[in-house]
């Protein structure tokens, strides 16, 4: 792969009071790759995702470049509009809106119609949104309030909303947490399939090692706020030090 990297994070630091959550993380993503971010609890994975998404401000000396542009210090909405989308560890959808409206809402910023008061501008989004909803397998609940959905369906919905922003990079924070084994795999398959179709670069935090090895091109291992190792699944699988930190701190991944 000789193309320009799409996302380059250099020396990313983050402190909460005296606690060092990120102690200088470097990470480079190539366009179209599927990168898994793993590591024991408290390694700083979610914080790193939050920094990339703009939810957390970066510490001094850190830089994040996206497609050649410096985005360190940008606001979440600016980052989102540039093409970095994310899901949250705790599923966040608009619970009181219908599934269809969740997707229509997600379509608004890229359509530039956020402040329109014309119902026509909304109905114009119905058919593309409906197509997406059906594509996610949520057609039967399209008009139900999101709060009535199962967790799996809510996760599909959130993924669909994120896709609707036409991202170039997708950050998934524990996309399969809290789900059954079969559901995990089918959800992951759906995500990877869509990402491949739309040529989206994926960075996903995941605890399920099975999922990680099945779906990732490359794996980055974090521990105590630092990058511990990086490589292909085969390389990481062969790295006994990685197994040590994992087993030592956390026990076997479920």
């Amino acid at each position, binding site marked *: 792969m000789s193309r320009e990297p799409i996302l380059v994070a250099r020396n990313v630091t983050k402190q909460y009071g005296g606690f060092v959550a990120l102690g200088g993380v470097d990470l480079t993503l190539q366009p179209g790759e599927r990168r898994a971010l793993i590591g024991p609890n408290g390694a700083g994975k979610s914080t790193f995702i939050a920094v990339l998404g703009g939810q957390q401000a970066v510490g001094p000396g850190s830089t994040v470049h996206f497609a050649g542009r410096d985005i360190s210090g940008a606001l979440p909405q600016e980052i989102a509009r540039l093409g970095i989308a994310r899901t949250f560890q705790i599923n966040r959808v608009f619970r009181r809106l219908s599934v269809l409206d969740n997707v229509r*809402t997600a379509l608004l910023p890229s359509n530039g119609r956020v402040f329109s008061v014309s119902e026509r501008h909304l109905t114009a989004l119905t058919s593309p949104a409906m197509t997406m909803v059906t594509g996610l397998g949520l057609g039967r609940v399209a008009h139900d*309030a999101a709060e009535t959905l199962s967790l799996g369906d809510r996760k599909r919905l959130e993924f669909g909303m994120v896709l609707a922003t036409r991202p170039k990079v997708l950050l998934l924070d524990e996309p399969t947490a809290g789900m059954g084994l079969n559901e995990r795999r089918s959800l992951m398959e759906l995500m990877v399939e869509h990402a491949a179709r739309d040529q989206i670069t994926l960075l996903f935090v995941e605890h399920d090692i099975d999922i990680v090895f099945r779906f990732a091109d490359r794996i980055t291992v974090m521990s105590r706020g630092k990058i511990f190792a990086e490589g292909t699944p085969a390389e990481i699988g062969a790295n006994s030090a990685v197994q040590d930190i994992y087993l030592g701190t956390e026990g076997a991944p479920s």
Partner: protein
Amino acid sequence: MSFEHVQSRWLFAAVSLGLAVAMLMLGPGIALLATEVAIMALFASSLGFLINYGGMVSFGHAAYFGLGAYGFALAAAKLGLPLWLAVVLGPLTAALGAVLFGALCVRLTHIYFAMLTLACSEIVFTVLFQAYDYTGGDNGLTNFMAPRFGLSPQIYAALTVAIVALCIAFLARIVRSPLGLAIQAVGEEPHRAAALGFSPRLVQLVACVIAGTLAGIAGTMYSVFQGNAFPDYAGVGITIDALVMVVIGGVKGFYGGVFGAIIYVLLKTFVSRAFTHWELVIGLILIAVVLIFPTGIAGLLQKLGLSRTARPSGEQHP
């Protein structure tokens, strides 16, 4: 646009028109009461919109009611402007106030947002109360016009009902528009909305200005109705009344404010006429209402199957 929407719009227009015409046939006493109910319905709806759609609980909404009243009354009484122009300036003043206060307040969330709105409204109240050379102070502004432009209570009631219906139709339109979805999205999950590319504060500010302007319209109409303006119109008492209306009306949709206003205005009027210890009675009634119908009147109607979903989503169920 679906068939049902066309239908419900016509229904709304017909009901509003019917109500307005009905005002003309009432006795003067009940027309006066109906006018007050209608104005408070608009005020409570604007607050309900801010709370239930924008996710912002304001303790200072009366600031905009007061600014609407004083924007009008000062223009008419002190600047001597023609009444039609003063009527326009009232809501405009409230809108300006909402831009200013909203820009400060949307930087905060939850109870801190609420307390900053309270501070803003108390500052408005104090300026109106103390700068008596300009505002009349506690003595307010009186005798600068005939109440209701000198219209009969019935005609003014009809006019008020028509304007309030238009404003509520406007709110309904917003709720079903892209902006409405944006406001609800930011109100419910600001982080999610930001990560989708919405600017949460800007969306919230727009919601504040919409709610503030509608509250200003209510304030202007109230000032015209009374033919006066007093600092109390920006006081925390009016905010609390509106909060009570929003809650007993039903905490989900903005139109709960309409039910809430009807019930609470009538309750306050007649209970305080019938009982010496009316505050005690109202307090007990409020507790009973909250414990028995925690979803408010709108929720009750919904349970009884008398109302559609509390939250029009723009499309009916298939």
